[in-house]
């Protein structure tokens, strides 16, 4: 098992190396475009252009350029944004990471807990009015676009009903550091967490319900009944336990993508300066070093999330342990 984990870790590093090469090639070896000109930004003076060319090694072979680039991102961390006049890219990314992580982690806890409860309740009472109601609500959650939902949330909690007893606790939009103000951190994030989680609660609740109902058809459920176990125990220990694999797969993909910047819309709506917002702004300004850094960061999280999913698989399913 230790060996399996080690091997998976090695694979992870290899995949990340592959991604870095591809990303590098896309940005710096695309024929017909001068990367130095793009890094330097619009209307750059010839001196700046020359400085960029030298600092990124564009006068030298491709592999040297690659090494220099990786050095700037990972070792020295002095990759500089020219578009934003000397803004250091790596610290900017580092500053946005806690924001995105806070947002996504909190929402993930919320959606995992709630959707597991919904999935179990719906599967246990399948075809009843309660099941139908939960599934209809789930569909509603999936159908509401997050930017719209976020704005509605803001309308309710920040303006219309802000003065009522229900929402007077909601602080103004923005992010507060956990280390400075834990209570403020929590309060500012509650509404974004709920907003981001609603979509996933809908999806995960429905997926889990389907998986539980499917595993309730299995032979081993009949064995469990023949053993004289209670229906609750059969549902939780046998049906739910074997249904979690599909759930974990989905979770790994969504979580990785969200941490990698897919929470952009939520971040923008709630004024949270996370990775998504950073990437979005970089794209707007064609800020090549920043795009490069955020893409590397995002792919790193997707890869890590997938590796974690694989580890969890091994814990969940003993059939995967031997090999």
């Amino acid at each position, binding site marked *: 098992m230790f060996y399996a984990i080690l091997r998976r870790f090695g694979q992870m590093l290899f995949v990340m190396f592959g991604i870095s090469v591809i990303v590098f090639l896309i940005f710096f070896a695309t024929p017909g475009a001068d990367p130095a000109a793009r890094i330097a930004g619009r209307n750059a003076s010839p001196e700046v252009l020359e400085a960029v060319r030298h600092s990124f090694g564009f006068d030298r072979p491709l592999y040297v350029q690659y090494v220099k680039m990786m050095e700037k991102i990972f070792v020295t961390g002095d990759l500089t944004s020219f578009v934003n006049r000397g803004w250091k890219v790596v610290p900017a990314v580092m500053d946005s990471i806690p924001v995105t992580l806070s947002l996504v982690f909190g929402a993930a806890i919320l959606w995992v807990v709630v959707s597991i409860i919904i999935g179990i309740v719906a599967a246990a009472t399948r075809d009843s009015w309660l099941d139908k109601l939960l599934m209809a609500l789930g569909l509603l959650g999936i159908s509401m676009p997050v930017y719209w939902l976020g704005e509605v949330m803001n309308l309710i909690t920040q303006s219309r009903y802000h003065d009522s007893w229900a929402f007077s606790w909601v602080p103004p939009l923005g992010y507060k550091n956990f280390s400075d103000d834990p209570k403020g951190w929590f309060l500012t994030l509650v509404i974004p967490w709920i907003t981001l989680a609603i979509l996933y609660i809908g999806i995960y609740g429905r997926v889990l319900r389907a998986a539980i109902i499917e595993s309730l058809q299995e032979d*081993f459920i009949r*064995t469990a*009944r*023949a*053993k*004289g*176990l*209670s229906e609750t125990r059969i549902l939780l220990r046998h049906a739910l*336990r*074997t249904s979690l694999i599909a759930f974990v797969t989905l979770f790994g993909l969504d979580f990785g993508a969200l941490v990698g910047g897919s929470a952009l819309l939520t971040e923008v709506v709630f004024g949270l300066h996370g990775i998504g917002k950073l990437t979005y702004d970089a794209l707007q300004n064609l800020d090549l070093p920043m795009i490069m850094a955020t893409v590397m960061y995002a792919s790193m999280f997707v890869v890590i999330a997938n590796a974690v999913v694989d580890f969890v698989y091994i814990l969940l399913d003993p059939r995967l342990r031997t090999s």
Partner: protein
Amino acid sequence: MILSVRDLKVSFRTNDGLVRAIDGVSFDLEESEILGVVGESGSGKTVSLLAVMGLITDPNASIEGSIRYKGRELVGLPARELRRLRGNEIAMIFQDPMTALTPVYTIGWQIAEQIRAHQNISKAKAMERVEELLAEVNFPNPHEAMSRYPHQLSGGMRQRAVIAMALSCNPALLVADEPTTALDVTVQAGILDLVRKLRATHKSAVVFITHDMGVVSELADRVMVMYAGRVVERGSRMELFSAPQHPYTRALLGSIPPLTGEKPRRLPAIPGSPPSLLRLPQGCAFGPRCPVHYEPCVTGKPGLGGGTHAAACFRVAQA
């Protein structure tokens, strides 16, 4: 008397109408007796025993008649009461050991789970009992086997684990639904030996469902032959094999190749196929495939007479 089933009827509502899977089945089972239930697929042998176990969970099923376990009526018993019997006094072994165990738990855990569902003992005590049970069903290394997952065991070993699980609470009644069908012949023989031995040591009564006449002739004290949801013949093993009465039983026995003497060029087969339960023929369900059917078979349904050896056939009644 361990089990007494009277006029059991199981039907399912389907989109095409009512399917009567079991139509008036009655049988008795004495202590430490092995009853072989034989029949083709769809003859209702599994459904009738699932009804005994209370394991028909289909909301479209309806169960009528009487199933008495040690004098206690099981039909209509509240789920909680039934659960107390299930796995504890009445245990079941299933057909396919590959899928009968939950893949994510060790077999030791799964057997202990059953023991702890019925007995108030510590986990450690339950595990000790599991080790004894696994030794009893001839696991070469019971202690090690406890921590194995189902996928790490062969089919025969899994079936032994399932049997150990069924025996874990010393059931008075063991229902075995084709426990050897999915296994190799040599493994099969081992399992049959085991069932015999367990009947002797645990004094459990066994209902053994199979479509294999050979297995029945080796194991059963009494035999019940089913066709299209009804019992067509019942009798002791000797009676049934030496003097089969019902044309269906005779046809089944006739389709076993002889071990000695000249082998037939082609094995005799029963013409036609079992009827759909949705469209049973009028009169005797076996009529259209029966070599000796005549007018009464179309107009009336033959009943099963009394006595230890009986067949539901007008020809037999006539003779």
